[in-house]
Every structure is written in structure tokens, then in C-alpha cells.
């Protein structure tokens, strides 16, 4: 494999997982919702995209549908689950992911069961070189990522962002201050799931083929380590984490290609992955970038006034 397509492939995956990391950061980093079933919503998005693409629908419709079905899935899970304690929520979401995978594996009529499903090319580019096809995908993925990033930035740097952070810190106190915590949590869960659905759709669109074995719990934990490594409650951190973890993944893949090792490199890759997670939790539990403070224009000007006042006094 020549180096250029390999690099471009890397960039596509940074984008797709960047969206996943942003959405988990919104759920866990800002709101404190421990979603251990991110892969479930990634799966819903991917299968929605694949099935719809076979009807000949244009790619933007497929992506919108991916976002919608995942959001609905998120809502259905959130109705019962969001009242639960954080560790129970983790168990429920984790098992949800496993059940969904079981369903697409057992029901051949949904997406070909274990044989998988091919995704019709939603963007027609007959005669284009593989490199330019990847470039188009990069464009698409990064536009989606930018939209998600802007939405989350706006949300988290607003009074709304203040409320969800308060819910993360102490949800009973937040409710006693007049915030309907169930509503906020359900909204965040739906929005986060919609974004994971878009990532899933882009994943299906890029790979042109999906099967149930692509949606193992490892996907969820890859996204978790991205958020924990980059720094929870920091959107730049989520993107940084996504890039670093992808780099780590590719790096260990390269080792596989160029070195002969006494143990099977695929296994080694996962073992190193586990070690990385533990090292981060032990030595850098707050992540690389620290939580970003809430910024609104009003706060910024108040802070400026405050510092000039202080200077005058001092």
C-alpha cells in the first residue's frame, strides 16, 4: 500500500472518530452521562445509511436519516435509563449495544445478518481515482465534523452549557435550582446519539460494506479513551484525543507490517490499548487539555470590566 492513500485513510478515520469523541464528550464530559453503548448508535446510523443507500437515496438524505434514527434510538433508551444511577446507566447502555448487535446478527432481512451488507455508492464518481474518492470522503467527513463541533461549542458556551455542567456536578442540587434534569439529559442523549448516527453513516459510506463484527464494544472504548486522553469537557481535547488514538492505532499497525514479533500483533495492539487506558487513568486522569470554562460575550465583557476595576483599585 502506498503511503498517500494510507495517510488519507487515516485522516478519514480521525474525522469519523472525531465526531464520535465530540458526541461522547457532550454526553460524558459536559453532562456526566456515562454512555457505555456508543457503538449502538454508531451501528444504528451505519445500518440506516446502508439500507437507505440501496434504495438510491442521495447521501445527504441517508445521513439525515442516520441522525434521526439514532436520535430516536437514543430517546427510547433514555426514557427509562436516564433516571438511573451512573453505574447502572453504564450497564444498561453497554448491554443495549450488545443486544442491537445480536439483532442485526440474527435477522438476515435487516442487513444480511452475519454476511453483512454492501453500501451503494451514494456519491457517484465513475472513473475517479481511489485517491480522489478518499478526498471527497474527507471533505464530507470534515464538513460534518465541523458542524458538530460548532453546535457543541455553541451549546456548551451558553447558559444551557452551564445547566448541563451543573447537572454533571450535582444533579439533585441542579433540580432544586429549577432545572428539569430529565429533560436536559434526554436532550443531550438524543443529540449525542444523532451525532454518533452521522458518524456511523459516514463510516458505512466510506467503507461501502458493513457487518455486525464491526460494531463490537471495542468501538465504544476506543471513543472513551479518546475523550479521557484528550480531556473531558474540552471539545478541542476530544479532537486531539481522536487524532492521538488513531495515530496510536496506525502506529501499532505499522509495527505489524514492518517487524516480526514473537506474539500476534493484532493481540498486541489491543493489549497496548488496555495499557494506555490504565496509564492515562493513573497518571493523567484529567486528560491532556483541561476543562474549558464557560465563555459568553456577557461573561467576557464582565471579566474585562472586573480586571480594569481591580487595576484602578490596586
Amino acid at each position, binding site marked *: 500500500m502506498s503511503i498517500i492513500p494510507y495517510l488519507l485513510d487515516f485522516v478519514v478515520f480521525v474525522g469519523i472518530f472525531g465526531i464520535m469523541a465530540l458526541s461522547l464528550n457532550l454526553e460524558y464530559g459536559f453532562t456526566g452521562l456515562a454512555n457505555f453503548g456508543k457503538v449502538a448508535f454508531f451501528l444504528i446510523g451505519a445500518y440506516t445509511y446502508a439500507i437507505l443507500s440501496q434504495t438510491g437515496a442521495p447521501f445527504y438524505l441517508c445521513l439525515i436519516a442516520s441522525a434521526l434514527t439514532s436520535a430516536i434510538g437514543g430517546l427510547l433508551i433514555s426514557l427509562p435509563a436516564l433516571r438511573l444511577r451512573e453505574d447502572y446507566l453504564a450497564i444498561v447502555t453497554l448491554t443495549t449495544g450488545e443486544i442491537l448487535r445480536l439483532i442485526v446478527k440474527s435477522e438476515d432481512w435487516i442487513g444480511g445478518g452475519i454476511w453483512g451488507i454492501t453500501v451503494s455508492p451514494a456519491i457517484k464518481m465513475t472513473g475517479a481515482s481511489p485517491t480522489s474518492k478518499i478526498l471527497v470522503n474527507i471533505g464530507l467527513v470534515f464538513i460534518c465534523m465541523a458542524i458538530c463541533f460548532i453546535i457543541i461549542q455553541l451549546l456548551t458556551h451558553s447558559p444551557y452549557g452551564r445547566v448541563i455542567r451543573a447537572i454533571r456536578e450535582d444533579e439533585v442540587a441542579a433540580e432544586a435550582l429549577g432545572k428539569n434534569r430529565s429533560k436536559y439529559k434526554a436532550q443531550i442523549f438524543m443529540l449525542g446519539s444523532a451525532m454518533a448516527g452521522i458518524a456511523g453513516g459516514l463510516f458505512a459510506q466510506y467503507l461501502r460494506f458493513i457487518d455486525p463484527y464491526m460494531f463490537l464494544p471495542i468501538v465504544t*472504548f476506543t471513543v472513551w479513551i479518546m475523550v479521557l486522553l484528550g480531556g473531558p469537557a474540552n471539545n478541542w481535547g476530544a479532537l486531539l484525543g481522536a487524532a492521538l488514538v488513531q495515530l496510536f492505532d496506525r502506529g501499532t499497525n505499522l509495527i505489524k507490517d514492518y517487524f516480526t514479533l514473537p506474539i500476534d500483533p493484532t493481540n498486541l495492539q*489491543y493489549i497496548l490499548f488496555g495499557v494506555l487506558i490504565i496509564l492515562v487513568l493513573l497518571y493523567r*486522569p484529567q486528560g491532556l487539555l483541561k476543562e474549558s470554562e464557560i465563555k459568553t460575550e456577557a461573561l467576557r465583557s464582565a471579566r474585562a470590566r472586573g480586571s480594569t476595576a481591580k487595576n484602578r483599585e490596586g
Partner: protein
Amino acid sequence: MDINWAQILLNSVITGSIYLIGAIGLSVTYRLSNFSNFAHAEFITLGAFIGYWVSSQLGWGLLPAFIIAFLLTGTVSLLCYRGIFQPLAKRGASTIHLMIASIAVGFIIRYSIGAGWGWTPQYFLNTWTTYEVGAIRITGLWLLLILVTLTSALTMHFALMRTKLGKAIRASSSNPELAAASGINVNRVILITWFIGAGLAAIAGIFRGASTQVWPMTGWDIILPIFAVVVLGGIGNYHGAIVAAFIIGLTENIGVVALTNLGLATEYRMALAFLIIIITLIVKPQGLAMFFRRA
């Protein structure tokens, strides 16, 4: 279709037994250490592989397999606790961080096993005689399982109720601060439960492995029903776990009959465990304790 209810009941006891000895360690450590250890699935897998290695690869027979698997897996579990979970907890890691760490530990164990034994399913070499009693068929393996479960369940019961250690475990799980204040070495109690719990998980792994296959996902394959036992029985509740294990065994076995009759894949029996988890967590009245948890 003729349904052999006696057989279904027996099968439920058998399924439930594996889940029970697989779940006890998870349930007690969840309660005492305040997080659910997802690497518990890999303790089951590890036990299955050690058992397979001792009995089928080395050819030493089943009894040494049980003993060695129990001790080795227990030791691995202790190392995980002392080397990773305890230091994390001391640094103030949240429940979620501990759970993520346990998943990472699970990865390390699972893929180390994959590196050591490979991902092709292996099978125990033992052959088992089948006995027929009336309408019931039972293999020697199942008889052994029932025997082991009964013995360990009774031993655990009397150990918990009568011995000093058992009382210490119960006191620590109902109120750790109070237990520590009354002179119980809670840390030692936690270490012992991590050891015994993982040892029992290893035994469950051998039975699961001997009756199906041994591969790096052996433990993860039954993680859903095991969680269902822990949750339905009440986290850290030993007697609750016994009842829950048999309820889940029964649900699965009746579920398989129902699913077959409905023309659905029998793999959906796992979905029943999932439903039990969700319904229990939501319906179980947590009341005020939930509302004032951090007060």
C-alpha cells in the same frame, strides 16, 4: 410440540448454577469496591483456559484443573486489584473511571489469552456418560456441576453466617465505615473477596468451557446473564444471587422453547437477560436513597 418440563427444570438448574458461581464474585466485589468489574468476564475465560490447559493439554485430569484454575485466577485477580484498582481508588478515581479501567484490564487479559492460545475455539477432551432417569437426561458433567454448586453454595452460606470472616464480609458490605470503626480490617476482607470471587469465576469458566467451547470470548459470551444475576439479586446480596440465578436459568430455558415456537433465533435468550436487567434497575424501588445519594 411435546414439552419435557422436567428436563427444562433440570436445564434451568444447570444454567443457573454456572451463572451463580460466575456471578458471586462480581456481586460481592461490586458492593465492596463500589464499581462493577467488567474484567470479571475475563476471569471466567482465564479459568476456562487454565482448566483446559491442565486437564486436556497436560492431561492431569479435572480435579487438579479446578484447583489450579481457582488459585491462579484468584491470584491474577488479586494482582489486578492491588496493582491497578486500589491505586486508582486511592487517587480518587470515580466509579466511571474504575469501570473503564476494568474494561482495559479485561482487554489485556483477553488478548493475552488470544496471544497465548489463539482465537480458534478449543474443546475439552473429556467425554461424559449420559444417564437417563425417566424422562430426564443428564450428563456426568452436569452432575458434577450440580455437586460443585451445592457444595460451594452451602460452604459459602455457612462461612458467611457462622465464621468470623463471613461476619466481617457481611458487615463490610452493609456499612464499610462502621465495619472499619468496629475493628474489622476492611481492606483484608476486600482482598479475600477478590480472590475467592475470581476463583469461583474460574470454576464457572471450566464448566462453561467444557460444555461449549473455550475461546477468548468464553466469559464475555455470558456476561449479560451474569450481570442480570448480580442486578436482580441485588448487588452484594448472596442469597438474592442464588434465587436470581435460578430465575434467570429458568427464563432462558423457557425462553428458548418459546423462541423456537415463535420461529425466532434462540440467541435472543440473551435479550431476556437484558430485559431483566433493565426492568429490575427501573422498577426496583430505590426511593429516597437514590435522591439523596450525595447528601
